[in-house]
Every structure is written in C-alpha cells, then in structure tokens.
C-alpha cells in the first residue's frame, strides 16, 4: 500500500494505480474535475499514464457556486 494526500487527507491506495483508476475508485467523473499533483497541473489527457507514488499530494477541484 502507498500513502498519498488527497485534498488534505491521507489515503492508502494499492501499490500500482494510475490517476485514472484512482478517480474511478473514488467515483469521480474526470471530465468534471481538475487535478494538481505536487503543485503541478496534470493534463486530463494524461490521467491514464500517471502512476501515483508514495507521498504524492493531490488537489482535486471542481466548479462550485461562487460570486
């Protein structure tokens, strides 16, 4: 298992999991979110090729109501 930080909380995930698979596990539609990994934007087109590693810090955001 690996430990990563997702939106400020620690999560344990299987050793080899791509970002695309991780989103599916979370139940999130990749079209509706944007992801920053270790302060770098991850382009949507590359989610399947990004393998998460120990210590990764992810920010997963979406649009909400705001003024």
């Amino acid at each position, binding site marked *: 298992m690996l430990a990563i930080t997702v*939106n400020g909380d620690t999560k344990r995930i299987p050793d080899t999991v791509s970002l695309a698979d991780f989103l599916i596990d979370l139940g999130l539609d990749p079209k509706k*979110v944007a992801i920053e990994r270790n302060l770098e934007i991850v382009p949507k087109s590359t989610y399947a090729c990004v393998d998460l590693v120990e210590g990764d810090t992810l920010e997963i955001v979406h*649009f*909400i109501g705001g003024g």
Partner: protein
Amino acid sequence: MANTNDTWKLAGKDYSSRLIVGTGKYKDFEQTAAAVAASGAEIVTVAVRRVNVTDPSQPMLVDYLDPKKITYLPNTAGCFDAQSAMRTLRLAREAGGWDLVKLEVLGDQRTLYPNMPETFVAVKELVKEGFKVMVYCNDDPIAAKTLEDMGCVSVMPLGGPIGSGLGIQNPVQIRLIIEQASVPILVDAGVGTASDATIAMELGCDGVLMNTAIAGAKDPVKMAAAMRLAVESGRLSYQAGRMPKKLYADPSSPLSGLI
C-alpha cells in the same frame, strides 16, 4: 422595447446580456438555475474548490448549469495573494478548458477590497500564459488604465464593497474609468437593488456583475428578473441621453393659449 441589436464584445465574442451573475449563496442548485434563467445572463461566475472525495455522489453545479450553453467564468474568490490566484486559475483552465477568467486578489477579510500590487503581479503572469483576464480592481482610473494596457480583456472596478449592497458609491470614479477605456468596463460588486444596477448602466458601463443582490433577496428568482430589466433599462437610458438637470422648474405644458 427590447434592445435586440445592442451587443457587446468580450474577448472577441459577442454577448447580448449585459448582466453577469454569480452562482454563490443560493438555497440549492435548483434555485441557482432558476435565478440564472430569470436574469437572462449568458455568463456566470463560479468558484474553484476541493471536491468532496468522501461523498462524490453529491450534486455538482455543472449538472444544473450546462457549461456548453452558458459561459463559466471561474473566479479567484478567497485568494489573498497572486500565487494562490494563479494556481486557482490554472486548475480552472484544466477543469473547464477555457481561458476566460475573473481575477480577484483580495486585500483583507473585512473590506474584501482588491490588493492591487498582487493583482498586477498576477495579471502580468496570467496574460503571458494566455489567459483572458477580467480583473476586479479598485476604482482608480490610473490603475484601471494600467490593467488595460497590461492586456486585461475587461476591467471591473468595484461600485461598493463585495456583498454589501451599498450601491454605487463612486459614480465619478466609474465614469472617469469608462471614458478612457477601450475594453469593456463592468461594475463588479456593490449593487444592492435594481436601481443600483440601472445607475451603473446609466454611467455607461458595458455591464454589471452581481451575486448577493440576487441571491440575498427574499425572492431571488424575482430579483433576477428585476435585475435583467434594470440593466436593460439603464442601458437604454444611457443610449437615449438624459435631459440636462436644471436648478428650477420648467413647465411641461405650453404657457400660450392659457384661459
């Protein structure tokens, strides 16, 4: 009389509605969607926040307001420095795939007044990165001109503090900014009721941006409709050109032929 041919151009695209509305502070997404529809807005502002990863089945704004039909304008509300604002907008661009953004870098919690030094830093970098920046700023004509010269696609001075509903506190400043501008000028923040929106438009603004004036009304959907009419009314009034003010009375009926 609808002013059907009176469009305005923002970052190369024509819009007919001059009212941009925020999507925050509503009771639920149904009310948000109903108010946006009643306002006739073609552009809505949205915030960028963390997804609730523990409950991803929660409804999302995009399920209620279709980004293919209405222009989403991501904002940087809550950012107090250039770095966090730029980070937010880079994420927004990746989330939505569009370059048009609203930059607001705030100075402090009490006034939510713009932090201009940080705003300039962010504008410089964002323009370089290809963003089309609509910028919330103070009502200083020199700052507004500088932001335009730096490449902002729209300059949006505040008419009053964000969420205050105090109305347009600075008509002279707003007019000075409008007179010298060659990009659209929108009053952003301060509008409290329909007449405030009309006053902003009568000054010659290209449009008005508001959130709390609608969401904070007792009946937000009805107020959204009122704002639509108020903005249209103010625009028509500006185009019509008001009568000169006089110090004394001037009878409306002819004096000749009096019995």
